[in-house]
C-alpha cells in the first residue's frame, strides 16, 4: 500500500537523521584514530563558522555547491541523471577564460556580463551534447556525461599546457585577467555598506547563485515549460499522451543543466583565481549530486545542503590542520560518509519512519 510521509518528516526529519547517522559513524572513526570526537566537532564548527574569514570561505564553497546542485536537480526534474557537472563546469570555465583573456579590457559591466553568458553557453553546449545523444540516439546520459568529463579534462589540459598558457612560464595556467573582469569581492561590497566581514574569496557569484535558485524555482514550478519538463521526468508515456515531446524536453533540460554547472566557474575563475587554472573544478560537480539529492530538488533544500558541504569543506580543512591524527584524507572520508548516508542510503530510515508517520495515500472515500 503506497503511503506518503508528511512534509516535515520527508524534508526535515529524514535528512537530519541521515546526517546524524553520518556524523555518528564519522565520530566512531575519530575515536578509533584516538582523538576526541567532541574536540573534532568543536574544531570543525569553529573552522567553518567561528570567525568572519571562515564564514567567507564556507560561503565561497557553498556557492560552488549551489550551482552544481541546481544543475543536477534540474536534470533530475526531467528524469535525467547528469553526472557531468564536473566537465560542464570545466568547459564553462573555458568560456569565461576566453572572455577574460581576450575581452578583459572591456568596460566592467559589459565584460563581466559577456563572461557570465559565456560560462552558461559553454557549459550548456557541453550539456546539450549528451542530451542530444540521449534524445536522438538513445545513449544513456549517465554514461555519456561521465565520458564527457574525461574529454573536457583532456581538452582543458591541452589548452592550458599549449595555446592558453601564459608565455614564459611552466605552470599550466592562463594569464591573469584584467582587473576590470574580476567579480566584486563581497567583503569589499559589504564594507562599502558598513558591514565588516573577513577577507575571503567570497564574491558576487553567491548573489548570482541565489538568483539562479529563484529562477530555477520559478521555471520548474511556475512556467508552462517547466510543467512540460516535469511531465517527462515523472512519466514519459504520459508526456507522449499529452503531446509533449520527451526528446525535446531532454535536450532542453540537459542544456539548462549544463549551463548551471558551467556558471560554477564564475565563482572560481572570475571570483577567486582571476585566471584559468588546471582542475579548478575540484570535484564540486560530483558533490552536486549529493547536494541535489539531499536538497530534494528544491532550491531551499539545495541551499541548505550546499551550506552543509561548504562548512564540511572549510571546517574540514581547519580540522586537518589542527588535529595531527586527522589528515586531509580523513576529511574526505567524513564528506564521503555524508554523501553515503544522505545520498546512497537516503531511504534507509524511510520504512521505519513510514511505519510511524505514514498517512494513507488513498483517503477514505464515501
Amino acid at each position: 500500500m503506497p503511503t506518503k510521509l508528511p512534509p516535515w518528516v520527508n524534508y526535515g526529519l529524514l535528512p537530519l537523521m541521515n546526517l546524524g547517522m553520518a556524523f555518528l559513524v564519522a565520530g566512531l572513526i575519530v575515536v578509533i584514530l584516538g582523538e576526541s570526537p567532541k574536540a573534532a566537532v568543536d574544531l570543525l564548527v569553529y573552522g567553518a563558522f567561528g570567525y568572519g574569514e571562515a564564514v567567507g570561505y564556507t560561503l565561497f564553497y557553498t556557492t560552488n555547491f549551489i550551482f552544481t546542485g541546481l544543475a543536477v536537480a534540474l536534470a533530475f526534474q526531467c528524469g535525467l541523471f547528469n553526472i557531468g557537472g564536473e566537465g560542464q563546469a570545466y568547459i564553462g570555465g573555458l568560456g569565461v577564460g576566453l572572455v577574460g583573456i581576450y575581452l578583459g579590457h572591456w568596460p566592467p559591466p559589459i565584460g563581466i556580463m559577456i563572461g557570465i553568458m559565456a560560462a552558461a553557453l559553454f557549459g550548456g553546449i557541453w550539456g546539450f551534447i549528451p542530451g542530444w545523444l540521449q534524445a536522438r540516439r538513445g545513449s544513456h546520459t549517465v554514461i555519456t556525461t561521465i565520458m564527457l568529463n574525461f574529454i573536457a579534462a583532456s581538452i582543458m589540459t591541452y589548452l592550458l599546457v599549449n595555446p592558453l598558457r601564459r608565455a614564459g612560464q611552466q605552470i599550466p595556467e592562463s594569464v591573469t585577467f584584467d582587473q576590470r573582469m574580476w567579480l566584486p569581492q563581497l567583503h569589499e561590497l559589504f564594507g562599502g555598506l558598513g558591514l565588516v566581514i573577513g577577507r575571503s574569496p567570497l564574491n558576487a557569484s553567491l548573489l548570482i547563485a541565489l538568483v539562479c535558485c529563484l529562477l530555477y524555482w520559478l521555471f520548474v514550478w511556475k512556467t508552462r515549460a517547466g510543467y512540460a519538463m516535469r511531465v517527462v521526468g515523472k512519466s514519459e508515456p504520459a508526456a507522449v499522451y499529452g503531446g509533449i515531446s520527451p526528446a525535446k524536453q531532454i535536450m532542453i533540460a540537459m542544456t539548462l543543466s549544463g549551463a548551471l554547472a558551467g556558471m560554477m566557474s564564475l565563482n572560481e575563475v572570475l571570483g577567486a583565481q582571476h585566471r584559468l587554472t588546471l582542475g579548478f573544478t575540484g570535484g564540486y560537480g560530483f558533490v552536486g549530486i549529493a547536494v541535489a539529492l539531499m536538497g530534494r530538488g528544491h532550491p531551499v533544500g539545495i541551499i541548505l545542503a550546499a551550506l552543509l558541504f561548504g562548512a564540511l569543506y572549510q571546517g574540514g580543512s581547519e580540522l586537518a590542520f589542527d588535529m595531527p591524527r586527522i589528515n586531509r584524507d580523513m576529511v574526505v572520508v567524513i564528506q564521503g560518509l555524508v554523501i553515503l548516508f544522505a545520498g546512497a542510503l537516503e531511504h534507509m530510515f524511510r520504512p521505519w519512519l513510514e511505519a510511524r508517520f505514514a498517512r494513507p495515500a488513498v483517503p477514505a472515500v464515501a
Partner: protein
Amino acid sequence: MSVSVTAGALPPAVALEGIDKSFGPVHANKHIDLAVQPGTIHGIIGENGAGKSTLMNILYGFYQADSGRILVDGRERVIQSPEDAIAAGIGMVHQHFMLVEPFTVLENILLGAEGGWTLQAGAAKAREALLRLERDYSLEVDIDARIADLPVGIQQRVEILKALFRGAHVLILDEPTGVLTPQEADHLFRILESLKEQGRTVIVITHKLREIMAVTDNVSVMRGGEMVAHRPTAETTTEELAELMVGRKVLLRVEKAPARPQAPVLEVEHLEVVDEVGVRRVKDVSFEVRAGEIVGIAGVAGNGQSELLEALSGIRKATSGRVLLHGQPILDAADARAKKLGHVPEDRLRMGLVRGFQAYENAILGYHLLPAYTEHGFLKKRGIIGHCLDWMKNYDVRPVAPLLQGTSFSGGNQQKLVLAREMEHDPDLLLVGQPTRGVDIGAIEFIHKRLIAMRDAGKAILLVSVELDEILSLADRIIVMFDGTITGELSGAEADARRIGMLMAGIREEAAA
C-alpha cells in the same frame, strides 16, 4: 488428505475468525469471519478497495493480520509467508501471472521445487505427476512448451497446475477471467468444477456478478473492509449482490435511446501498425465513426486494440494507411487535440495521469498550452485550480481536493478526473479505452451515463473495452478484433455474447456457418 464430498459435518476447509488488518489509519479488514466449506467453490465479491485482496493476501501469507485466527481443516495455522501457506495446502493464482516467460511449462513448475541440485531427477518425477494432474482435471497443457508461446488462457492453467503440483487443496483465484475470452472462461469454469468434484476447495475473487452466479456454491460480499453478507448462491440474485456490494440500489442496465448517427467524424482506411520489435499489431483495418454514435471495439486484450487506439490518437505512428478526423490527417498527439480529439487512455496510471502530480496539474495534461491556463509562459495556477474544482464537482470526483496527488484518489475517482479533463475540452471525437477498468460499480454507472449523454449531444465515441458486458450495453455498433484484424461487425441490437465470443476467438461468421 482426502475430503469426501458429503460436506457439512466436516470442519471448514478454511476458516477465518476475527481477522483484522490496518495499514496506518486505513482499516482494510474489520473483524472478518469467513468459513469456506470443503469441496465447494466459494466466491468473494466486493468493489475495489473493499478489502478482498487484503484478506486473501493474509490467507496466503503476504500480510500478517493484526489479530484473528486462521484455521485450515479445523486446525489453527500460523501463516507468515507464502511458504507457510503452501505447506498448509493453500495455493494462489494471481491476477498477473508469476511465470518466467522464456522458461518451459515444466521449468516454471519446478521453480522453487527443484528437488535437488541437479534438475534431472526432480524433472522426471514432476513430469509424471503433472501428466496425472492434467488427466485428472482436464488441464491440457504441453509441458515442454515455452510460456511466451502460450496464450493467456493456457498460462493460467499452468498457474493452476503449479499450485496443484505443490499440493494445494485450497486454491485461491484472484480475478481469474479478466484476461480470458468467454470461451476460455467457460473452460476455466469446467476445470474448477472438476477440482470441486475431486474434493478440492476453490475460492474465487471477482467483481463480475455473472461469474459468481454461474460457478459458485456460496458467496461472501465485502464492502468497506467489512464482510456484509454470506449467501448460498442458489438463494440470491445479481440484483441483491450488487446492492450488497455498493450499499444501495444499482442500475445494472444502461438506459439509452436509439442512436441517431450523422456525418462521419473519424475515418480509418487500411491502417497498419508495426510495433518496435517488428510485429504487425494492426492489419489493414478500416472503419468509421459517425457523430452521435458509440462504436465499440471488442476483443481479448492484446489483439491490437491498444495499438489501434494509440495510432488513432497520434501517440504511435501508423506504418501505412490513413486516419482522418473531419477529413484531415492526424499528425501527432498535440495535433490530435488541436483537432478536437479527446482520449481517455487504457492505462490511466501510466498515461492518463502523471504520478506525483497534484490533481490540478493532472487536469491540464495535454491542454497545458491553451491560453486559458497560461499567461506569458507562466501557469495560471489559481485559474487552473478553479476549473479543476468545477470539474471535480460536476464529475463527482471525491474528495474534491485539487491539491491532492492525482494517484492518491481511488481508481474510480482517477478515471472520473481523466474523463472530466477529456470531456470538458469539448472534443468532437472521444476515444475511450477500458473506461471502467479497476473502477467500482457506482462509478461505472456514472461513467456510462456520461458517455451516453455525450453521444446524445452529437459527439462521436470510439469505445475499446475487454469487458463484453460494457460493449454490449453501450455500443451502437460493435467491431470485433482478433490478431490485429477486424473479424466482424455487428449492430448493437443483433449482438450477443456468444456471437461476439466466436469473433473474439478469430472464428469468422461465414466460416462458422
